[in-house]
């Protein structure tokens, strides 16, 4: 029945096409002068021009970057220490620790969102950028910890012993041996945290207060209000930025590989 089947190959490329077709149409439409995507009304940049004069989009962008910056900083710190602890120690405490780090990865965002909202309401904390940052840190910590933990799996524990053996104390060993070696994992985790934070809509939507509108929340309300061409333009810019970042990461990791090989 299956004789060197071509089906998986065809299916794969079809699905990849399925992944990118809507995105491609969106980008094309951002240059479409016609309001609806159904017909081509000629090439235009007017939607982009409109975008640059929209104050609320710039505000939302600034909010997003602020939240992402602090969330990345804090979650990278917490995630790295968590990963080191999980890797170095075994026992009941770390089992519990691992569960707490792991479960947020699989809990639906809406549950995280509503529970944090209720938590802040119960504590009578005013919603705003600080609560947003705390929420983002909470779901980013786990991703950072997993990224660093992946790097630690390949780490040879004997290196720490070697450093101690040569007279270094724990702090010196951590600074000069452990951190430099797991640094790529920390960077990867930090990048992941940054992207997740910038992209997050559901959790942000729940814990957002007045004046803490982030870019995804702004996009959502634009979708609701139906200003389609403007979102096309905004999305295209965001997609371009994302692709650029991915390209840079690919380029860096390729270089890294080459370095490690020779």
């Amino acid at each position, binding site marked *: *029945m*299956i*004789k060197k089947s071509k*089906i*998986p190959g065809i*299916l794969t490329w079809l*699905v990849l096409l399925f*992944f990118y077709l*809507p*995105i491609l*149409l*969106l980008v094309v*439409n951002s240059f479409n002068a016609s309001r*609806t*995507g*159904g017909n081509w009304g000629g090439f235009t940049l007017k939607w982009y021009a409109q975008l640059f004069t929209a104050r609320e989009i710039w505000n939302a962008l600034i909010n997003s970057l602020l939240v992402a910056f602090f969330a990345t900083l804090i979650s990278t710190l*917490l995630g790295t*220490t*968590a990963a080191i*602890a999980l890797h170095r*120690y075994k026992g009941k*405490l770390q089992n*519990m*620790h691992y569960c*707490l780090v*792991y*479960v*947020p990865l*699989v809990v*639906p965002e*809406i549950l995280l969102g*509503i*529970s*944090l*909202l*209720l938590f802040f309401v*119960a504590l009578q904390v005013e919603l705003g950028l600080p609560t947003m940052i705390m929420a983002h*840190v*909470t779901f980013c*910590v786990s*991703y950072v910890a*997993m*990224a660093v933990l*992946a790097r630690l799996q390949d780490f040879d524990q004997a290196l720490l012993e070697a450093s101690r053996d040569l007279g270094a104390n*724990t702090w010196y060993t951590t600074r000069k041996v452990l951190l430099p070696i797991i640094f790529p994992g920390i960077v*990867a*985790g930090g990048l992941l945290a940054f*992207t997740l934070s*910038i992209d997050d809509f*559901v959790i942000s939507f*729940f814990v957002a207060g007045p004046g803490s509108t982030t870019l*995804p929340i702004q*996009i*959502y309300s634009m*979708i609701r209000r139906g200003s*389609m061409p403007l979102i096309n333009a905004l*999305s295209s810019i*965001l997609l371009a930025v*994302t692709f650029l970042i991915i390209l840079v990461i*690919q380029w860096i990791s390729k270089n890294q590989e080459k370095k490690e090989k020779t």
Partner: protein
Amino acid sequence: MNLRRRQLLKEWGLTSPSLLWLCFFFLLPTLIIFAISFKPSDPLGGVGDGWTLQTILALRNPNYPEIIGRTLWMSALTTVITLVLSVPIAYHIARSKPWKRDLMLLLTVVPFWTSFLIRIFAWKAVLHPDGLLKKALVFCQLISPESLLLYRPGTVLMVMIYTELPFAILPLYAAVEKFDFGLIDAAMDLGAGKLRAYLSIFIPGIRNGLLSACLMVLIPCIGSYVIPDVVGGIDSMMIGNVIAQRTFVDRNLPHASALAAVMTIVMFLPLLYFLKGKKQEDGTATPAREVV
């Protein structure tokens, strides 16, 4: 003894930042969901004083069984279709030449990094009544001009599969890549047909990958909110939408909380099952939604 105490101190020093943070901002809020389910609402949109069973009893709303049923049914269907599509794709990627494999993996990973909202919005534009797909289908006389592509359960299902596919392909790819294809040769050498060899050797061989892919698709589906909200209609509402509605429209937080408690319980059943299986398998399953 002194050495051991110092060790313990160091362990706590490294563990406590993340442990305390997650206890405070994850464990406690999750418990609060259950507590607030027993609180009355207050007219200002906050949480009232005292304790009541009214909120829990309000869950007897006749619409809810249907919505919960739909949520589970749509999630299960999405999971099954996604997995059926993903296994051959993961197989194909894992068995391709290195450069092709890297390219296909990159193309699968990129959606991870692009905004979730934008990808859903892109579909809305494609399926829009004035959109390209509708026009093309009407032109080919496949559908009548009056029919709707948007705001239907099928639309929600398709977009959910679209967003979940990468999350299934990646863990499955990791599992297929580790699979020793010599085993298939061995099975066929022992007289098994190709189909039988794949069903009895390959599928059990990637069991861990299947399990974690299944979990990674199923649980976010149960919590779906944005997709039914943006491309779905009244007849494709899921629990997530009701929670959002109670939170933002009715401003009845205890009611939203009770629904979230229901969702937590529904979601924890497959999760516990998975974690149990994972422990037995010595934790080789990929951590959830991990990209790097």
